């Protein structure tokens, strides 16, 4: 039996959510021990932002695959561009916020980087193990 694109993406999202929850938990613990409550917020924001960032790309591919080639590229690249601008604005507000103390800021960075790299490992493993058809998904 072959896997459809939807199956692959939902598998990636499910495993990605588990990984992000684990990184958020470990990061919160380390953050709490190092900097107190702001460290917990930092870890949760970092891992959540990384998951949202990668999950939106996967979702845009899933939505775009139901359209024609121009629609696919518009959904994936347009979604990517809007997402980048939104994250730039969000991170700039977060960087200026007072409740995220100076000591807890590196925790955001390290949770983002570990969630992104872990997410890439999951993506690669799932895609390499998926049994994709050599033909279009469309009927």
């Amino acid at each position, binding site marked *: 039996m072959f896997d459809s694109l939807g199956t692959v993406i939902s598998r990636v999202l499910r495993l990605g959510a588990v990984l992000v929850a684990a990184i958020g938990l470990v990061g919160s613990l380390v953050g709490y021990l190092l900097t107190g409550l702001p460290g917990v917020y930092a870890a949760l924001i970092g891992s959540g932002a990384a998951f949202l960032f990668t999950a939106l790309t996967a979702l845009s*591919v899933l939505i775009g695959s139901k359209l024609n080639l121009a629609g696919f590229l518009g959904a994936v690249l347009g979604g990517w561009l809007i997402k980048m601008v939104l994250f730039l604005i969000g991170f700039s507000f977060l960087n200026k916020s007072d409740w995220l103390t100076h000591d807890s800021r590196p925790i955001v960075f390290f949770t983002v980087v570990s969630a992104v790299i872990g997410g*890439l490992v999951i993506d690669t493993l799932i895609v390499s193990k998926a049994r994709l058809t050599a033909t279009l998904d469309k009927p």
Partner: protein
Amino acid sequence: MQIIHLAADAVTQVSQVTGNLGVLGYGLAAIGPGIGVGLVVSKTIESIARQPELAARLQVTMWLGIAFTEALALIGLATPFIFAA
């Protein structure tokens, strides 16, 4: 000799630049992923044009390529949290 004068002028001008250097940093961080995503997409379009029946498989590969490239962009966006003064 003229080149040395020009270089000295350039150094003086650069030292007079004021403002947030993080803006320049983000610009530099966006160049790599921009070129990377452009290449991934252009090659996917080329491949789909050559073999349209492989579109589904190529779309998955393209998504994997974009995921790897955008990781660099996301890390670039998160660097102010570690490098900020």
